[in-house]
Each structure stands twice: as C-alpha cells, then as structure tokens.
C-alpha cells in the first residue's frame, strides 16, 4: 500500500518536473490547405535540451508542422506552446526565443556574410559579433563572400549561423543535410551536437535514417500528416527486432559510407 502511494507520489513529482522540461508542446494540431489535410491531428512534446527528429517521406507534413510552430503559417486547429508561450497569443515573443532554418530558403544575394548576420542581429534586436558566429561554423575566411559563392555545405553552415544570432533556446532545422556530401554531413552533425551541448534544444527534419539514428535523442515517424510513432531510435529498433524482424542483408560491421570515408577522409572539401 505504502509502496503504491509512493509510486503515485513520484509519478506526480515526475509530471510536475517534466512539465517544466517541455520546451515545446503540440496538441491535436491540424493544418488544412483547402480540402487537403497536410497535418492531421498530431500531438507531441519536445524535452528541453534534446535533439528531436521528424522522420518522414516527402509530403508527410514535416515542413508544415515546423512552419506552424515557427508562427509562419496559421494553424487550422489545435494547441501549440513554444517556450511557455502560446502561438495564438504571443507569436512575436516566440520568434525572438527560437532560431529558424527554413528548407531551401535563401539570403539577399548581394550582401556578404557579415552584412547578413548584422541585418539579422538587428531584426532580433541582439548585439553579436558576426565574425565569432562565423568562426563557430568554420566560415570566418568567407566573411566577405556572398551566399551564392558558397558550396552547399557552407551554405547550410551559414544558415545555421543565422539561426544562432539571438542565442535561441530552441532551433528548428528543416532538412539541413539534403544535398550534402558525406564529409559535409558529418561536419554538420558535429556542429548540431555542439549546439545541443551549449544548451539549445534542436528540432530537425530529415529523410535520412542514418542521420536520425546518429543525431536524435528521440524521433517522430510521420506519414500522411500523422505521427505513427515517437521514441528513441534505439528503442524503436529494439522493438522491431523483438517482434521477429530479420534483415535480408547480413550486417558486416561496416557499410559503404564507412568505406567511402576510409578512402576519402573525413576532412571538409569546401
């Protein structure tokens, strides 16, 4: 009996603490475009300090979900609370607390990297040293370049730098590694891990499973506007194997990417 009470008690304590730990809460989120339902009643929570991944094929609703949370798209229904603020009531406050990397968005073509970072720091009302941010993403030597002169990997790293101008609590990265070579991907993952270490929560979308497996503490598998499953990659794999799943290809202890990186090295090419 005492044991039962203490268990309930610890459960309540856990609930109270965990409520504080939630940096993002989404409840029954729906987003329609006309007759098309892009996001169909999803609910999830993101813990403070974790890297949370959205996995799904193209058109699953990942980007729409992110843009609603980022207050860039109006939702159809549901409730979204970001960093303790409701998106319906305090969009501007939320914007100033989060960092956003949009999928395939660009920057003013004739401004150099320093000028763009200065511009964004003014938009967020923060004082930063652009060169320090560029150093963080290994682009200090490109400070006078235009974005169009950067390689794909450099462009993604720069985009990442612009999400950090306001020292955000939470950043959203929408398919940051699409189109990058293996070296650039590994480098980007290391950067994202660094950002997490510095106390920033990361929400990332991807359709690369290896990326999610290496990077994410928890993932949500999404398809056709619904979340099918949320858990850590490890747990999800264990569950599948426990259910009697066997792979037709035998695990050799290495894969082709390991071979490729063994030959070409891990250093960045851009």
């Amino acid at each position: 009996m005492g044991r039962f009470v203490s268990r309930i008690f610890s459960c309540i304590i856990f609930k109270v603490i965990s409520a504080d730990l939630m940096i993002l809460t989404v409840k029954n989120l729906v987003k329609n475009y006309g007759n098309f339902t892009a996001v169909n009643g999803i609910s999830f929570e993101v813990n403070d300090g974790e890297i949370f991944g959205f996995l799904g094929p193209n058109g699953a609703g990942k980007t729409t979900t992110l843009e609603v949370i980022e207050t860039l798209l109006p939702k159809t229904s549901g409730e979204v609370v970001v960093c303790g603020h409701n998106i319906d009531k305090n969009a501007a406050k939320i914007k100033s607390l989060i960092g956003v990397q949009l999928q395939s968005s660009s920057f003013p073509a004739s401004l150099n990297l320093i000028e763009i970072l200065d511009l964004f720091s003014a938009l967020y009302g923060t004082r930063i040293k652009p060169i320090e941010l560029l150093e963080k993403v290994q682009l200090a030597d490109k400070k006078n370049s235009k974005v169009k002169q950067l390689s794909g990997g450099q462009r993604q790293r720069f985009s990442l730098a612009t999400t950090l101008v306001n020292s955000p609590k939470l950043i959203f990265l929408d398919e940051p590694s699409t189109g990058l070579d293996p070296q650039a991907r590994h480098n980007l993952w290391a950067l994202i891990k660094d950002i997490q270490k510095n106390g920033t929560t990361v929400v990332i979308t991807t359709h690369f499973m290896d990326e999610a497996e290496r990077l994410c503490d928890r993932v949500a598998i999404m398809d056709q506007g619904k979340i099918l499953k949320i858990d850590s990659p490890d747990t999800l794999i264990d569950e599948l194997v426990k259910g009697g799943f066997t792979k037709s290809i035998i695990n050799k202890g290495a894969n082709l990417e390991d071979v490729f990186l063994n030959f070409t090295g891990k250093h960045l090419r851009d």
Partner: protein
Amino acid sequence: MEKKNSSAYPNQFRALIALTKASIIQSLRNPSMLFFSFFFPVMIICIFGILDFNSLHVSIDVHSGTDNSSPVYTALKKISGVTLNEGKSDSIINDDLTKGTVAVAVKITSNNDAVNGLTTYAVNLEKSAAAPSDASIIETVISSITSQINEQANPNSIILVSLNESVVEGHKYKQIDFILPGQLAFALLTNALFGISFSFVVMKKDKILKRIFAAPVKKSTVIFAEGLSKLIIAIIQTMIIIAVGYYVFGFYLAHGFQTILEMMILSFIGIFVFISLGFLIAVISKDNEDSVSPIANLIMMPQMFLSGAYFDITAFPSWLQPIARLLPMTLLDDAYKVVAFQGGSILSTWPQLLGLFVWAILIYAVVLKMFTWD
C-alpha cells in the same frame, strides 16, 4: 492584447534602419539598377549638355509689320542663340515653316489704347509642325518673357522695355534646362519601378521574406524600409543630377538653393508615386520573376517616350497629347520645369501635384487590394 503583442517585438527602429541599409546596399550593387538610375540619365544630360554647351541656337522668322519697339521684340533680340530673321516675305516664311527650317514665325503688333494711355502688345506665334522640338522651346521662352513682362508691368506706365531688360539678360536658355528635369524624373521612375518590383518578387521567390518574418519583425517595418531606401536613393539621384547639370552645364536654378530644395520636395512626391507603380508590377507579375521585366518595361517605356523627356509632346498626334500630359512622369517633369525654369513656387505646381496624388491614390488602392505576402 494588441499592445502586449506589439511590445514583444524588439526595437523596430533598429530593424528599420538595418533593412533600409541592406536594401540600399543591394540597389547600389546591382549593375542594371546603377545603369538606369544613375549612369543613363547622367549620360543623356551630358550628351545634350555637350551638344549645346553655350546656349540654344534657334532662329525665328519675324513677319513684316512687327513693332520693333515692343518689349517682347527687344527681349528676344537680347537672348544669345536666338536669331531673328527679318524682311522675309510671307510666302518665304510659310515655306520655312512647312519645311521646318525655321521652327517659329512671330508677328508682334502694338495697340495704343487712347483712353488709358496704355500700349498693349499682341504676339502671334506660328509654329512649324516639322520642327516641334525647337518650336516648343521657343514657345516656352516667349511665354516666359511675356509673363515676366506682364508680372512686372506697371499699369500706369507706357514704357515696359526698361523694366524687363535686366530680367531677361541674365537668363540664358539652354538645352540642359529642358533636358534635365525629364532625366531626373526618369531616374526616379527606374529606381522605384525596378527596385521595388524586383526586390519583392525575388524576396518572395527565394523565401528571403519568409526567413525575415521568422524573426520578430513587423510587416510594416519591411514595407517602410523598402520605401525609405528608394527615397534615400532618390535624394542621392536628385543631388547628383542637379550637381552635374548645374556645375558642368549651367542648369538654370531660378532661385538658387531654394529651387534645389523645391525640386527635392518634388522628388519626394515623385518617388512616393513611382513606388506604387513598383508594387503594382510585383502584384501584376504574380511574383513570377520572368514577367517582372516585361511588365516593368510596359509601364516605363510609354512614360519614357511620351513624357517629353526625349521627344516633344507637341510632336505627337493630337489624340495622344492629353494622355501623354497626364502620365505620372510627365507631371513630375512639368513640375520640375515650373520650379526650376519658370521660377514658380511649389504651390504653383498644384495642377501637377494634384495629378500625381490622384495617380498615387488609384494605384495604391489596387496594390492594397491585390498584394499578398506569400
């Protein structure tokens, strides 16, 4: 609620300055923008200025029976560059006008009013349709002379000549006086037209605008910054073009520095109207980058060629002239001329300003109805 929300935005003034600065830098680094908004108008001014450096050269046929003692005649005679051909027969004068070898023929007659003791003069102008540009210049010169004489005439005095001598003498009419206002209006038009339309369409297409709005910045701040950047560029354009015209080619400023200020105010009004055209292009092109340029040219070209900046409006068919005179660029061009050339005040340009405001109201109404952010 609204108040609470707006306070969550960081200092929008700093955002405004940063966005304006970014927009100006982008414009000044854009080669085609630099060409049309600065280089091209200055080049045209230089060409016309060099071609006609000293003064204009026009000749006027004077009909027999003209009163040589009339103040208008005396004033015309004093203008360097104006040659008066006298002693030609009516048939030769008619031939000159038909061929366009002479742009204008005048007959000035005097009429003594015995009751008031006042002498009035009638100036009869015949313009050649074959030389409309020169004819229009002469017409402007003569109307300027007559209005000055009339303004200064003392009703009780019979002799008007001595009064207007000094007025006419210091004022040399130059080609630049006719060319510069049109080029300035053209420079402002291209600045706003291409600047606004391209920047909004590209910002939307490349999702730059979306990225900007991911930051806590108000939409009005972005719009305001775009307008402010075009305004600042317009100030630079006005100063450069007037400076080149004045210092290199002796552009006439009726009241010196005050005239520059008045022209600057007209530039402000002009750019405000032209910005609406820039937004109109962005709206009509439905944010398709490829259709911006053709639509912008469709709006710019008629104004460029019909405004009188390059060709004289009186040369156009009579049905086209009223349309040409009502185009925004023509109105601004005319207003500049009233202020700089005729020495009129800003208030005396009210017909042009009224026309410009009507354009602004109409176009902004369409833009507000059709503009979308994404």
